[in-house]
């Protein structure tokens, strides 16, 4: 089955073609059937490949499957070829699995939308691109997926294209991503001219043997690639597009802007771990950017009132965690958190979708409250996801988040740990703030709306339940401390490089106590939220009034959008306008028209000499004769 790995990305594109070309002419059920099964089939194929891979002898791993030679020019060759190794397998499983669940959910969520076939064709195309991204065996094919997911993100954010804010957000996402891709592209150039190949395994093996730790060119390569990651995975300073991306339909936010696409940067860094371990400077940059993003966006999340925006900032923050993990060399922990995050964050978004669906489109939490009894399944699944993201034992997020916290302390720096712990506190706080504002307390729901509030149909609640199960037990594949219980780690290890540093063994008691500390931090956050939003609902008002400046800063997201508009966007617009009207029309074309004008002026005046009177011409000849004669005589 492994040699058919190309079917995994190929099948979804058939769905894209079918729904894109014929979707409007076939009944809706066929659109749903095709749309979902082209994701379900690859999921099954991945499972088969996974099983087969486990049985392969060690020397036959990993497997590369070449489909054809895509671009070849001189000694440059980019193959359409796939790499089956533990990392790509995990990613393929997560991507196709979560995508499948979200496709099913979409059948219910998008049911009454006019653009139903268009929605499914875009979503299928997205899964195609994402699967290419995670299964490619070389940088350029990965880049195809990389830009492809960006395109689908653009199309799906702007899915309701009649809304100005939606099409603006889509465009913003694409352009900001392009800035990141610019770095990625330069990284590929540098890789090719350094290694003469763009194949992952060849590059990594040459890098490992021919380059020293700290090599300048590897540092440059890894930094350039990381620029790409900051764009795609919404890290500082390019995170600004992700919160706006919430303009898209909610299942899209769940799939693309939480579970899969935005984690591409983390995957890429982990994939290139062999390069990153050679570049300590880059690792430090990754860790610092990750930590800074985690704390910054968590703090913004504290003050948002739109249910999806809270989740969006939370996503940015969790991605920051993953990069922090990679930055301290704990790539496996990063990927582990990527996976558990895919489960619980997809669930949170789908749950919020269920709420929004029930509330007839309302997203402002100030108009919610006490929805618990109306939406029992949504509520309980939401609780599980929230416990997972807060890092409460034994939910999935506990294991992955704890590992990151622990690694950032022992392999990183106490500062990293402090920042990560503070962000963890905020995460627990804003997530429970969300729970309390939405599901508990007094109902602030509009009467009209309240009348229609209802639990979602099974086609939407079943995916919630499936993800809730995964969010609850998903962490058990990576149990720490106990020898051999960390299956996830052992499986992934062959695909990941290690930072060369002396091994320090800490006593088990230390690790356990750190675990307890991280749970306590989460509980503190929950408790604070409980005090502020349940016990004394007047508190938030008082707090914001006490720190008006800080609150204003956070509420307005540190004015980063405004800053970018003033320093980048507007200068470019004004400059371009000047280039056009000032330089192009006045100077460049002015020179052309000017010279034409001069000639016209000259001709107009010279024309006057041509009077048509023979006498004038005779006079001119006579004068000429005198001048010439005078010249020769006078010599």
């Amino acid at each position, binding site marked *: 089955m492994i040699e058919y790995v190309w079917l995994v990305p190929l099948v979804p594109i058939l769905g894209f073609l079918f729904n894109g070309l014929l979707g409007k002419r076939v009944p809706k059920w066929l659109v749903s059937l095709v749309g979902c099964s082209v994701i379900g089939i690859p999921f099954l194929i991945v499972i088969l490949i996974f099983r087969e891979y486990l049985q392969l002898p060690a020397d036959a791993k990993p497997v590369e499957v070449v489909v054809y030679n895509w671009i070849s020019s001189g000694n440059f060759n980019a193959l359409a070829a796939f790499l089956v190794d533990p990392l790509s397998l995990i990613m393929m499983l997560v991507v196709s699995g979560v995508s499948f669940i979200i496709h099913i959910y979409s059948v219910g969520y998008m049911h009454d939308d006019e653009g139903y076939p268009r929605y499914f064709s875009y979503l299928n195309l997205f899964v195609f691109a994402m699967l290419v991204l995670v299964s490619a065996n070389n940088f350029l094919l990965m880049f195809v997926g990389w830009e*492809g997911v960006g395109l689908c993100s653009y199309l799906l954010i702007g899915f309701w294209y009649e809304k100005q804010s939606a099409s603006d957000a889509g465009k913003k996402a694409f352009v900001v991503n392009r800035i990141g891709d610019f770095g990625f*592209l330069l990284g590929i150039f540098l890789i090719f001219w350094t290694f003469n190949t763009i194949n992952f395994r060849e590059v990594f093996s040459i890098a490992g043997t021919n380059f020293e730790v700290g090599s300048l060119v590897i540092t440059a390569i890894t930094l350039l690639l990381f620029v790409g990651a900051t764009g795609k995975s919404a890290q500082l300073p390019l995170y600004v597009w992700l919160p706006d991306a919430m303009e898209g339909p909610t299942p899209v936010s769940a799939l693309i802007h939480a579970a899969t696409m935005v984690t591409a940067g983390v995957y890429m860094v982990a994939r290139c771990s062999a390069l990153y371990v050679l570049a300590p400077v880059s690792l430090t940059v990754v860790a610092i950017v990750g930590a800074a993003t985690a704390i910054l966006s968590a703090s913004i999340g504290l003050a948002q009132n739109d249910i999806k925006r809270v989740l969006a900032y939370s996503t940015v923050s969790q991605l920051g965690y993953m990069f922090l993990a990679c930055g301290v060399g704990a790539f496996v922990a990063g990927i582990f958190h990527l996976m558990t995050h895919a489960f619980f964050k997809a669930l949170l978004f789908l749950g919020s979708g269920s709420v929004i669906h029930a509330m007839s489109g309302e997203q402002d939490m100030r108009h919610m409250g006490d929805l618990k009894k109306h939406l029992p399944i949504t509520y309980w699944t939401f609780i599980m996801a929230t416990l997972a993201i807060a890092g409460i034992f034994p939910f999935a997020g506990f294991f992955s988040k704890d590992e990151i916290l622990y690694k950032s302390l022992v392999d990183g720096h106490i500062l990293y740990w402090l920042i990560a712990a503070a962000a963890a506190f905020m995460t627990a706080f804003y997530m429970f703030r969300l729970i309390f504002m939405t599901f508990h307390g007094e109902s602030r729901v509009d009467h009209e709306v309240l009348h229609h509030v209802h639990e979602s149909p099974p086609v939407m609640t079943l995916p919630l339940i499936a993800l809730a199960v995964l969010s609850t037990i998903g962490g058990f594949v990576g149990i720490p401390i106990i020898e051999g219980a960390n299956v996830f780690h052992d499986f992934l290890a062959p695909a990941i490089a290690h930072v060369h540093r002396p091994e320090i063994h800490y006593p088990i008691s230390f690790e356990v106590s750190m675990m307890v500390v991280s749970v306590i931090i989460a509980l503190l956050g929950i408790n604070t939220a409980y005090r502020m939003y349940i016990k004394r609902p007047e508190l938030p008002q008082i707090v914001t009034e006490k720190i008006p400046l800080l609150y204003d800063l956070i509420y307005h997201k540190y004015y980063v959008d405004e800053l970018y508009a003033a320093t980048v966007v507007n200068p470019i617009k004004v400059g371009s306008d000047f280039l056009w009207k000032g330089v192009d029309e006045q100077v*460049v074309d002015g020179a052309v028209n000017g010279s034409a004008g001069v000639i016209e002026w000259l001709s107009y005046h010279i024309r006057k000499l041509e009077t048509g009177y023979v006498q004038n011409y005779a006079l001119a000849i006579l004068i000429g004769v005198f001048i010439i004669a005078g010249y020769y005589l006078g010599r």
Partner: protein
Amino acid sequence: MNLPILSILIFFPMLGVVLITMLSRENQWVIKWTTLVVAVLEFIFSLPIWFRFNSDTAAMQFVERLNWFPSYGISYHIGIDGISLLLVLLTTFLTPICVMACWKDIQDKVKEFMICLLFLETGMIGVFCALDLFLFYIFWEVMLIPMYLLIGVWGAPARRIYAAVKFFLFTMFGSLLMLVAILVLYFYHHKVTGVYTFDLLKIYGLQIPFQMQFWMFLAFALAFAIKVPMFPFHTWLPDAHTEAPTVGSVMLAAVLLKMGTYGFIRFNMPLFPEAAWYFVPLFSVLAIIGIIYGALVCMMQLDLKRLIAFSSVSHLGFVMLGLFTYNMAGVQGGIIQMINHGLSTGALFLIVGIIYERRHTRLIAEFGGLSTPMPIYAAIFMVVALSSIGLPGLNGFVGEFLILLGAFKVNKIYAILAASGVIFAACYMLWMFQRVMFGVVTNEKNRNLPDLSMREIAYLAPLILFIVWIGVYPNTFLDKTKASTANFVAQMERAKAPKVALVDVIKGDIR
């Protein structure tokens, strides 16, 4: 069977012209169908040069050589290699598409219009096949006439005369110096070898002193740079494109501009290799200015056709940057990007033409929300726009990637600056697309615009096919150019720029 296939390709459209002159002008329908049949047959006739082309050799193929004015060394010498092959095919491929596209658009003087179109085709193919400088010059100049008429007669009434005259004068101005340089070459060849000839392949063998190369390169380059157009010789282009009828813009963008870039790789660089190296910095910088400047100016345009015209300045900057890298990736990228630009920008002009035909305006502000009444149109427009901004999987990416890869090897700064153009391309294209296609319909006139007709789908579909094909499997096309490019690169590698100060070259103080 050894048919003179290139001659057939060059002169078959002329046969069509003769045929059409005999038709009654009252019968527009017959004229249109005749033209279409001629153009389609021409395309079919051109297929053998694709299938019978030998990709393993850099030598000229399908060569025909007749003495024309033997006493002056003028010959009818034609042939193609991997570089011109694709351009000839692009021409024969686009002409029938253009005939179909102007079916409803052109109602006035149909007969003359079709004659101009076929006449133009002859000229274009002639330019790409000519291997004799004299013959080349004739085709090069002949081509101006039908294009001049297309803009001046069928253009948008307000400024068509201004645009046509500007186009004509600009090109003429450049060509004159080239003519002088051709004559200098001609006499120099006689001086060195004692033989008078305009034959390009023979003149290739000349060892020309650097001083002379320097000036001759400039003389040729001016003609070609205007045609490309390179910054700062580009200002004729927005006017010509904007005022020309749809089909005129398509031909202008897709094929005529390529004559400039083709001229560089066929004449400038191999004839004057040392000077070509010497000018790498200058032309690369101009190309990069073109890329960024074109893209920035694009962003602020209010007129759709003007926007696409400026995007051509940007895209052709990429082609020039690629050609001046003198390495495989860059040059092959440049060649394939010529084709890509022809397909994508040609398609963009057709697409704009479609709404122009319905609304008689090109102003972006007049539109908005067209996705709702015209969903098929929206889908095709989206694919073409994405191809133009270089999305992987579509054609534009392959060209831009190879060019930048090649440029990166030569000079990292060039590649970094040029790659920033990729960001701006996304900005102007998507912003334009948003303003035209997205949002709610605000202008009542747009509410009930009919979606694409079968005819419109029929001529856009082949373009989409190749946009995807080149994106997914570019090797079909790259393979054809491989041998010729390798030969060109090897030729260039044998030469190096002498280390001389510019002042000394100009003063003539070099030994």
